[in-house]
């Protein structure tokens, strides 16, 4: 068995290829999409390896379409990899694992469940009884600051509040590893900043949680993480890993420190090199 015994989560040489139909724009072919359609292969991820240790917060940043979200979904076996292995606590993964909790970019709340019932969802699937479920859900609703909103439905809440529900729902199953897919990506800038420090507060109050956090926001990655993984443009693989030296608990002052600005500049330059040149972005249609 390969893999560091210390590592909570290991990716070993992950590959992922998509097959899509070549897009066509002629009038007729829009109505007959399957007629003489040509499948093209897109290599999303090539040789991605990564080790995440217990209690560590790792962010993954990269240019759009580099496969960072796909990599996260592979970690939770929501999509299968075409090659390589995912090891969680040393054992290979083929199906979503109970050690992992996934937080979705679009919140993924059930519109027919109110806040309390959404937070109870994972516990319900695990067969926790109603009394116990209510008690545990309530403590996490309180933790994310939504006391008093238990019987609200998702459409009655703002985006920030909806993601608080999403986080409470995931924390309620007490996962060892949190996998977060651009959880604040659809929020406005101010709410996003507030939620970043809320997440630090929430995780700080929990037992040490291991987290992998996908984002395209470099400041967000630096504020939250112990390490930041920079991915190359597609086909994505690991370009470099940046250590973030700030201690915990972190306060907003960290944003103004010279080290922070320096690290942000470094990450920015690193990502700039991965931007697809504009001329190359337009593929000549064979």
């Amino acid at each position: 068995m390969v893999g560091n015994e210390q590592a909570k989560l290991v990716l070993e040489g992950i590959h992922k290829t998509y097959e899509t139909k070549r897009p066509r724009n002629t009038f007729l072919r829009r109505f007959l999409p399957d007629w003489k359609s040509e499948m093209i292969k897109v290599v999303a991820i090539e040789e991605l390896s990564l080790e995440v240790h217990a209690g560590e917060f790792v962010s993954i940043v990269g240019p759009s379409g580099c496969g960072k979200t796909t990599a996260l979904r592979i970690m939770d076996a929501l999509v299968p990899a075409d090659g390589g292995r995912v090891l969680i606590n040393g054992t290979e993964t083929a199906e979503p694992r109970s050690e992992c909790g996934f937080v979705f970019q679009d919140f993924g709340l059930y519109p027919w469940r109110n806040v309390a019932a959404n937070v109870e969802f994972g516990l319900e699937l695990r067969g926790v009884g109603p009394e116990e479920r209510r008690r545990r859900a309530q403590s996490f609703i309180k933790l994310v600051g939504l006391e008093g909103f238990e019987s609200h439905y998702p459409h009655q809440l703002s985006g920030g509040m909806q993601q608080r529900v999403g986080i409470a729902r995931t924390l309620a199953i007490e996962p060892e590893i949190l996998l977060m897919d651009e959880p604040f990506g659809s929020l406005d800038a101010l709410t996003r900043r507030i939620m970043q420090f809320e997440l630090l507060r929430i995780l700080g109050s929990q037992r040490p949680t291991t987290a992998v956090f996908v984002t395209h926001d470099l400041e967000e990655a630096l504020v939250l993480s112990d390490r930041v993984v920079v991915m190359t443009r597609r086909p994505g693989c690991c370009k470099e890993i940046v250590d973030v030296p700030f201690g915990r608990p972190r306060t907003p002052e960290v944003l103004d420190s010279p080290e922070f600005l320096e690290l942000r500049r470094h990450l920015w330059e690193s990502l700039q090199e991965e931007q697809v040149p504009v001329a190359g972005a337009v593929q000549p249609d064979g």
Partner: protein
Amino acid sequence: MAATVKVRLISLVVVFALWWLGSLLAGDLILPSPVTVVGRFTDLIADGALGRALRIGLTSLAVGGGAAIVVGVPLGILLGVHRTLGRAFDFYFSALYVTPFSAVAPLFVLWFGFDSGTRMIFIFFFTLPQIVIVCYQGARATPEGLIDVARSYQARPRDIFVKTILPYEVPFIFTALRLGVGRAVQGMVVAELLISAAQGLGFLITAYSAALDIGAVLAVVLFIMFLGVLASMLVQRIEDAVAPWHSEVTTTGEPSGG
């Protein structure tokens, strides 16, 4: 709510005024005035003709339409969830939906005979495709993202079905019921017009139009329309009670900010 009632009352008053004006211009024989129609309506109730016809009609409606719901809802969901079955059978229901049922009504008589059972079978096949199609589309429309949420909590396929696909389907079932009730009422009248010669609301319409009693024809037709609206409102009320999240989402549109 009060505003809705007000607007609808005004709209009804305007329509009735126009109707009354039209009957003045055309003459009571061609277009009977509302007063004449209401008069014929009370006659029909008084002599028991409407009551008898309604009892017969509602019985075949309840059995035929009820069977279409009981069969159509699970069948639509099954076709939506099971891809191969869906591909194999979905187009039959599209075909059934556009079948000219009034033209094939004689076949029903040929196959099933000339009694009330045939009317029920007719209503069943007339209503079934609508219910199957709506439920089928609902089951297929469950967002992949919501299924992923369930999977990320290690939901088994059965949990995904019960806790994600079925709740998402609920508003579609109500839409199917609303549309299905309307279609079943249509089917009932068509069946009574074409299949059994001496019973039901359709028979009343045929008999009175043969006698050129336009007032009575309109009284029966308006009564059928009223029944349809009432049934559809009833289904809406039940939906508001059972799936409050859906009607609020659809009536308030965008989620509130804040």
